[in-house]
C-alpha cells in the first residue's frame, strides 16, 4: 500500500523544492500558467521563462530515461475532449491568475487567501466534473 504513495510524495517534494529554488534564485513564483502566458505573450526579460518551460519537458524525459518507467497510457479520450479541456484550462487559469502550481503549491506556501480559495474552488469543480461525466452522464460519452 505504502509504495503507492512513495512516488507521488517524492515527486511532490521535488516540485516543492523546484518552486523554492526558483523563488530563492530568481525571486519568481513557479506558477506554470503564468510563466507560459508570460513567455508566449512576449514579456520583457523572457529567456528564463522559456528555459524553465523547456526544463519541464526535459525533466519528464530525464525521469523516464533514467528510471525506465514507461510513458503513461495516452488518455482514452477523443480530440474534442482535448480541445474543450485545453480551452477551459487555458481560459480559467488566465482569468483566475493561476493553476495547480501557482495557486496550489506556491500560493498556499505564501499563505495567500486568494490562492487557498482558488485551490478549493478548482478542486471542487474538478471533482464535480468527473462526477457528472462518469456517474451521471456515465459511459454514454
Amino acid at each position, binding site marked *: 500500500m505504502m509504495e503507492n504513495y512513495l512516488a507521488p510524495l517524492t515527486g511532490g517534494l521535488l516540485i516543492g523544492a523546484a*518552486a523554492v529554488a526558483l523563488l*530563492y534564485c530568481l525571486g519568481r513564483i*513557479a506558477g506554470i500558467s503564468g510563466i507560459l502566458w508570460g513567455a508566449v505573450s512576449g514579456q520583457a526579460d523572457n529567456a528564463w521563462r522559456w528555459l524553465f518551460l523547456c526544463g519541464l519537458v526535459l525533466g519528464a524525459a530525464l525521469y523516464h530515461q533514467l528510471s525506465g518507467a514507461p510513458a503513461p497510457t495516452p488518455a482514452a479520450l477523443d480530440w474534442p475532449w482535448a480541445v474543450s479541456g485545453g480551452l477551459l484550462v487555458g481560459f480559467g487559469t488566465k482569468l483566475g491568475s493561476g493553476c495547480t502550481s501557482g495557486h496550489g503549491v506556491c500560493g498556499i506556501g505564501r499563505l495567500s487567501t486568494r490562492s487557498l480559495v482558488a485551490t478549493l474552488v478548482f478542486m471542487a469543480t474538478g471533482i464535480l466534473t468527473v462526477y457528472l461525466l462518469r456517474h451521471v452522464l456515465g459511459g454514454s460519452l
Partner: protein
Amino acid sequence: MKALLALLCGILFGVGLALSGMTDTAKVLGFLDLFGNWVPDLIFVMGGAVCVTLVAFHFVLKRQRPLLADAFTLPSRKHLDPPLLAGAAIFGVGWGIYGYCPGPALSALYYLDTNTVIFVIAMLAGMALAGRLGKAGAAD
C-alpha cells in the same frame, strides 16, 4: 547564470511531475473521482509540495532580495474577486474533463501524443481569449 538556474528549476519540476504521476491523465481523473473509485495517491503530490513551500518560503521571503534579481516578484492582489473565483471554477472543469493541468500538459509533450499537443494548443488559445476579454474589460 540566471538562465541556467531557470532551466535547472524547470527540469527538477518536470522530474517531479513525471515521477509523481501527474502526467498520467488516468491517475489524475481517478484522483478527482471522489464519489466513484477514488484513487487518493495524488494527494501526496500537493501535500508534499506544500509542506516544502510552506516551510521554505517563510525563510526565503525574509531575505531582502533573491540571489539573482533585485526584488521578489509577487502577486499584489489580496482580496477575493469574481475573476479569481470564476477562473478557478472554469479551470477545474477543464482539468476534470481531460486530466491535465498546465504543468503536466507541458511535461507530457515529451510523450508525443497528438491529443496532448492539441490540448496545449487549445490551452494557449483559451489563455489568449481570456487575455483579450481582460483587456476589453479594462477598457470599459
